[in-house]
C-alpha cells in the first residue's frame, strides 16, 4: 500500500549528472557533519563537565568549546544548505513526503536550533565574565540532541515508503523503529568523541601541561568510541534484512567503506588508549582526531549506501531524466572554488595577521 503512495518523479529533468550530485551531496554532508559533531558533542561534553570537574578546572574548557560552537553552529547551518539542495534534487519526493508527516516537529527543529545557538552565545558571555554557565550549556545540549533526534526520525521515514501509510496516520511510530535508537546513539556518540578530544588536541596558549579537562576529555572519547562498536553492531543487527543483505552481498564497493570505517575505528581506539596514558601529548591527540574524522568520512559514505539500499525497491522502476545545465554548473564550480579560496584566505589572514611594532590594531 505505502509504496503506491510514492509521488511521481518531478516532470522537470535533473539539471546535472546524478553521479556528480551524489558526490557533492556526500562531500558537503560530511563537512556539515564535522561542524555538527563539534557543536553537538561540545555541548554534551560541556554539560557533563560539572559532574567530573570543579568550576575552576572546567570553565576554560567550557569557554573553549563555547567559542568553537559559536563558529561550528553557524558553519553547520551553512553546510546543511548544500546537501539539502542536492538531496532534494535526487530524492525530493521521499524527503518532502517524510517532512510533511512530521511537519510541526520539522519546523520546530529550526526553532530548537536557533535557541541552542543563542544559548551557546549566552554561555560564552557568562563564562567570559567569570560566571557559571551550566544551565545554558545543559539546555543547549538538550536542544541539540532533540534536533539530532528529529533528523534521525525524518531519515528513517523517508527511506521506508512501504510504511508511509502507517506513518501518515501516526508519525510517532518511527520512534519504535528498531533502528531509531541505535542510529541516534551512533550519531551522538561520534559527536561526543570528536568534541571531547578537542581540549587535548588544541590546548590553550600558556596553559602549563595537560589540563584536567583535556585528561577527562580523552577518557570520555575513549569510552564513547568503545561504546560506538557495540552500538554499531546493534545498528547493523536491526537493519531490515533486505538492506543488510544488500550491504553484505554488494561486493567490495559496498563493504569497503564500512570495513575501512571499522578499521579506522579500531586504530582510533588504540590511539585513545595511548593518549589517555599520555594526556600531554598534543600530537597524539591530533592524530586521534584525524582518525575520527576519517572514520566519519567512511561512515557518511556507508550511510549514503544504506539509503540507496533502503530505497532500492521504491526506485526500481525509476527513470531519471537528465538535462545538464553545463554552463551554470561550470559557473557554480568556478564560484565555489573562488569563494572557498577566499574563505580559507580570510581565515588564515584573520588567524595570523597581527600588528607589527608601532602599528595599531583595527
Amino acid at each position, binding site marked *: 500500500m505505502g509504496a503506491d503512495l510514492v509521488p511521481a518523479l518531478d516532470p522537470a529533468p535533473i539539471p546535472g549528472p546524478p553521479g556528480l550530485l551524489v558526490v557533492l551531496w556526500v562531500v558537503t554532508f560530511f563537512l556539515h557533519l564535522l561542524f555538527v559533531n563539534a557543536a553537538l558533542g561540545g555541548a554534551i561534553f560541556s554539560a557533563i563537565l560539572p559532574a567530573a570537574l570543579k568550576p575552576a578546572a572546567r570553565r576554560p574548557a567550557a569557554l573553549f568549546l563555547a567559542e568553537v560552537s559559536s563558529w561550528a553552529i553557524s*558553519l553547520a547551518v551553512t553546510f546543511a544548505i548544500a546537501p539539502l539542495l542536492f538531496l532534494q534534487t535526487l530524492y525530493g519526493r521521499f524527503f518532502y513526503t517524510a517532512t510533511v508527516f512530521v511537519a510541526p516537529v520539522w519546523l520546530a527543529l529550526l526553532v530548537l536550533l536557533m535557541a541552542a545557538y543563542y544559548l551557546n552565545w549566552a554561555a560564552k558571555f557568562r563564562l567570559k565574565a567569570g560566571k557559571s554557565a551550566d544551565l545554558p550549556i545543559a539546555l543547549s545540549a538538550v536542544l541539540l540532541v532533540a534536533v539530532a533526534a528529529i533528523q534521525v526520525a525524518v531519515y528513517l521515514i523517508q527511506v521506508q515508503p512501504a510504511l508511509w501509510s502507517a506513518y501518515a496516520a501516526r508519525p510517532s511510530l518511527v520512534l519504535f523503529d528498531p533502528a531509531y535508537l541505535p542510529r541516534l546513539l551512533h550519531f551522538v556518540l561520534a559527536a561526543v568523541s570528536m568534541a571531547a578530544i578537542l581540549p587535548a588536541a588544541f590546548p590553550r596558549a600558556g596553559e602549563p601541561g595537560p589540563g584536567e579537562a583535556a585528561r577527562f576529555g580523552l577518557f570520555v572519547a575513549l569510552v564513547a568510541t568503545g561504546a560506538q562498536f557495540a552500538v554499531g553492531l546493534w545498528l547493523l543487527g536491526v537493519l531490515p534484512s533486505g538492506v543488510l543483505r544488500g550491504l553484505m552481498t554488494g561486493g567490495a564497493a559496498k563493504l569497503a567503506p564500512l570495513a575501512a570505517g571499522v578499521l579506522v575505528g579500531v586504530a582510533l581506539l588504540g590511539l585513545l588508549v595511548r593518549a589517555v596514558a599520555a594526556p600531554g601529548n598534543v600530537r597524539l591527540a591530533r592524530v586521534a582526531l584525524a582518525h575520527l574524522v576519517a572514520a566519519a568520512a567512511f561512515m557518511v559514505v556507508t550511510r549514503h549506501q544504506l539509503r540507496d539500499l533502503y530505497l532500492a525497491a521504491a526506485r526500481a522502476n525509476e527513470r531519471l531524466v537528465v538535462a545538464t545545465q553545463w554552463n551554470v554548473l561550470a559557473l*557554480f564550480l568556478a564560484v565555489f572554488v*573562488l569563494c572557498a579560496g*577566499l574563505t580559507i584566505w580570510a581565515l588564515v589572514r584573520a588567524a595570523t595577521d597581527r600588528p607589527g611594532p608601532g602599528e595599531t590594531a*583595527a
Partner: protein
Amino acid sequence: MHREEELSGLERLRIGPEVSMDYPIWNVAVGGGVLIGVIAVLHVVVSHFAVGGGIVMALAETRLAKRPDPALRALLKRSSLMLILVSTVFGAISGVAIWFVIGLVHPAATSALIHTFVWGWAIEWAFFLLEVVTALAWYATWDRVRPRTHRLLIVLYAVAAYMSLVVIQGILAFMLTPGRWLETRGFWDGFLNPTYLPGILFRTGACLLLAGAYMTLAALRERDREARLRLVRYLAGFEIAGVLLAVAGLFAWKGALPPEVQAIFLGAKPLIVAVATGWRHLFFAVGASALLALLALLVPRAVRWPVAVVALLAAFGVLGGYERVREGARKPFVVRDYMFSNGILVSEVEALNRNGILSKAKWAAHDAEPTPVSRGRAVFRSECASCHTLDGYLGIKKRTAAADADFLKLFLTSLRDDGAKWTARPPQKADFPYMPPFVGTDEELDALVAYLDSLKAPVTAEVKRGS
C-alpha cells in the same frame, strides 16, 4: 535499479505534463500562506539588513582609514555583534525555514524550483559560505589584526552578501515573471527574467535604507553630542540613497510586469483590492522614510529614539509592503503561467478535467470512502487546502455559509470554465482571476459541492409548543 537518460537542448521540452506529482497534504490551522508569509517577512528583513549592513559597514570602515573617528569605530564594533547574531544564524535558519515551510505547503512547487535552479542556489550557497566566515572573522578580529586586514574582511563580507542577493533575486523574480523560460525551459531565460534587474535595484535601495535606519538607532547610544549628530547625518546619506534606489526600482519593476498584472495596481479587480491598497501603502512607507531621512540629514538633533524607531518601522514597511504586493500580484500562481498555487500545472488542466483530480491526488484520495462527501473532501484537500482552511485563515466554512448547493455548483462550474482561459494564449487568456480554476470531472465537482454543503451547521426549525 533506476535508470538515467541524458537529454539535451530542446529535447527537455518533450517532458510532458502527463507526468504529474502528488504529495501528502499538511493541514495547518493558520493557513500555509500565512505561515510562509510570517517566516518570509522575518527572513527578508534580516537578510536585507545583513546585505545593507555589510555595504554600510564596509564603506564606513574604509572612511575610517582616511578619517579616524572613534565614535564611528565604536558604532561599527557594536554593530558587528548584531550583524553576526542576526546574519550568520537567524538569517541562515530563517532562510532554511522558508524552504522547509514551502516544502511542506507546496512540495511540488519547491521541487519544480529546485529542478530548475539548483545550481543557482548552489552558487548562492558558495557566496553565503564566504559571507558567514568573513562576518565571524570580522567580529572576532577587532583589536587583533591590522586595520587593512580588518577592512578587507568586511569588504569581502559585503561583496559576498550582495552577490547572494544578486543570485537569489533571479529565482524570486522568476516566480512572478518567468519570461522566456515558459518556452525554452532554459536556466538563464528564467533567471534573467523581466523583473530581475528592477528587483535588484529596489532591493539594493531597501538594504541601504534598512541598514541606515538600524544603525541610526544604534548611533543614538553615542554620548558625545557632536559625534552623535555627525553619525546621524552620515547614516542619513545611506538612507536617502536607499530611498532613491528603491523608488527607481519600484517604478522599473512595475513597468516590467505584464499589463494584466499592472492593472491590478489600479484596482482593476475588486476581489484582490489588497494589492492595490498595498501598493499605495508601500508608497506611504517610502514617503515617510524619505522625509525622516531628510530630517536626519538637515536637522540631526531632531533624531531621538522615537523618531529613529519610526524610521526603522517605515523601512520595514517599505520592504514588507513590496513583498506583500509582489506575492499578491503572483496570485493565483506559484510560478506564473506555469503552476497554480495548489500545485496544479497549467498544462495539465485539460487532462485533469478529463481524468479527474483524484487520478493525480493519490494522498488526498487514499483514505477516501466511496461516498460523495468523502470524495469531495479529498477534492478539497487536493485543490483548495493549500490556501483555504476550514475555520481559520480564508476559512471555507465562512465563505460558503450563505451559498446553497445550486449556487456552489454554479460557482465551481464557472471556475472550471476559467481553466480553458488559462491554457489559451493572449488575448483570450484569462487576465488575473483571484483563484486557480477548478479542475476535475463532473462527478468530482458534485462531490466537492456535497462536501462544502456538509460543512454547514444543520438548520433546525424551532417550533413553539402549542402553535
